[in-house]
C-alpha cells in the first residue's frame, strides 16, 4: 500500500512554498482544516493565493493567516465576517476575486475532473460577466467559466483510513470533496484515522485516489459562528 500517513500538520505542510496556490475546505468555520491552518501560520509561508468559500473570522480560520499577512490573494464567494479582511481589501494590501458560490464549487469540481471550462447562468448581466464569453443555449444566456486547480488542496474530514478514503459529517462536507480532487497534492486532516478495511466502502465520500497525505488532527475547536438554539 502507498504510504500516505504523516504524523501531523507540520509534516503535512512542510514543503508548501511561498507563493503557492492553496485550496482550503470549509463553509464559514464549519469543516475547515484547523490543524493545517495553525501549521501554516507557524511556518510563516507568504504570498499565498487561497481558494476558499470564506475567509474565516478575525481570530480563527483563514483570518489567522490574514492577520500575519501571509495571504496575497483570496478567491472566495463571501467574506463578510472578517474586519481585518475588509481593512486589507479596502487599503489594497489584499487582492480578492469574488465568485458566485455555485460557480466556485463547479470551477473546483471541473479542475478535479479535468474539464477546463463550462457554461453557467450565474452572473450573466452583472459585473461578474465582464470579459467573459457569453453564449445562448435554449434561449437563456450563459457565461464561460474556467476550472480552478491548486498546488495543494487542504481538506478536513470526519473519518479517514490510511489509504486516504474520506467520510465527512453533516454540513462540514461543503467544499471539501471537490477540493480534494483539485489539488496537485491533497492533504486530508481527519478527526479519526483508522486502518484500511475499517470503513465501509459504501460510505466513502472521497475515494483515496484523490488524497496524497493524511493525518489525524488534534484539539479540534470547531468554533460556531452563530450558535442558535430553540426559543423556549
Amino acid at each position, binding site marked *: 500500500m502507498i504510504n500516505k500517513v504523516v504524523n501531523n500538520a507540520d509534516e503535512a505542510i512542510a514543503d508548501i512554498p511561498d507563493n503557492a496556490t492553496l485550496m482550503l475546505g470549509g463553509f464559514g468555520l464549519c469543516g475547515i482544516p484547523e490543524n493545517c491552518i495553525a501549521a501554516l501560520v507557524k511556518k510563516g509561508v507568504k504570498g499565498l493565493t487561497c481558494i476558499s468559500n470564506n475567509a474565516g473570522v478575525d481570530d480563527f480560520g483563514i483570518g489567522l493567516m490574514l492577520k500575519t499577512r501571509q495571504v496575497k490573494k483570496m478567491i472566495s464567494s463571501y467574506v*463578510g465576517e472578517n474586519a481585518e479582511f475588509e481593512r486589507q481589501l479596502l487599503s489594497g494590501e489584499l487582492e480578492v476575486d469574488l465568485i458566485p458560490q455555485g460557480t466556485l*464549487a463547479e470551477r473546483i469540481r471541473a479542475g478535479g475532473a479535468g474539464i477546463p471550462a463550462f457554461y453557467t447562468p450565474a452572473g450573466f448581466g452583472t*459585473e461578474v460577466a465582464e470579459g467573459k464569453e457569453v453564449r445562448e443555449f435554449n434561449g437563456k444566456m450563459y457565461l464561460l467559466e474556467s476550472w480552478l486547480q491548486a498546488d495543494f488542496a487542504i481538506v478536513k474530514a470526519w473519518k479517514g483510513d490510511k489509504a486516504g478514503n474520506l467520510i465527512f459529517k453533516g454540513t462540514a462536507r*461543503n467544499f471539501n470533496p*471537490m477540493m480534494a480532487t483539485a489539488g496537485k497534492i491533497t492533504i486530508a486532516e481527519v478527526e479519526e484515522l483508522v486502518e484500511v478495511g475499517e470503513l465501509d466502502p459504501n460510505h466513502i465520500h472521497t475515494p483515496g485516489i484523490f488524497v496524497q497525505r493524511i493525518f489525524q488532527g488534534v484539539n479540534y475547536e*470547531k468554533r460556531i459562528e452563530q450558535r*442558535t438554539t430553540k426559543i423556549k
Partner: protein
Amino acid sequence: MPLDKIGIAKRIAQEVQDGTYINLGIGIPTLVANFIPEHINVVLQSENGLLGIGPFPEEEEVDADLINAGKQTVTTLPGSSLFSSAESFAMIRGGHVDLTILGAMEVSENGDIANWKIPGKMVKGMGGAMDLVASAENIIVAMQHRSRSGESKLLKECTLPITGIRCVKKIVTDLAVLDVLPEGGFKLLERAPGVSVEEIKEATSGRLIIEGEIPEMKLN
C-alpha cells in the same frame, strides 16, 4: 400601518405551495419557515449542503458540523440529506429548487435585483445569491419598501451593482405585495393593513401599475 419583519414573513408564507423545495435567504426569508401552515409540506434547502432543514437545536443538541447558510446551528429532520456544495448548486442551477426567497437592496421594474455590493462601502461578496437568482423558477423578494434614508427600493433601474437580471417575480414589502410583470412594471396586488395606495405610490419610484380596488393583505 407598515408591516414589521414578522408581518412580511407571514405574508410570504402564504405564497408557499405544497410539495415544493425552497431556498430561504438570510434575514426575513429565514423567518418565513416559522409561518408555513402545517398542512403545507415543503422541504427547505440550505446551499451549504443540507436538504430538509430542521428547527434550531436544543442547547444539548448543538452540533458545530451542522449549520445553515447563515452559519446558524440547525438540525436535520427524518428524510433530510447531506451533500457537497457542488451537488447543492446542481440542485439550484439544474432547476430542481422550486422557489427562492431572498432579501434585496434594490429591485428594478424589469425584475433586476441588487443585493450584494455597495461600491466602496460593503464588499462582502455574493455568496450563492447570483447562482440562485440565475436559476430559480420562482423568485420572491422580501424587503422594506424604502431604505433607511427613505429612498425607494423599487426603481426604474437599479443603481447598485446587479446580482441578476429579469428574475424577480414578486415582491413583498412592509407596505405592499407587487408582481413584477414580464413586460416591466410593478403591479400592485395588495396593500399592508391601513396603508393607502397613495403612500405606496409615493414610496415607489419605478413604474407602478394600479388596476381597480387594491385589497388589504389578510394576515393571521
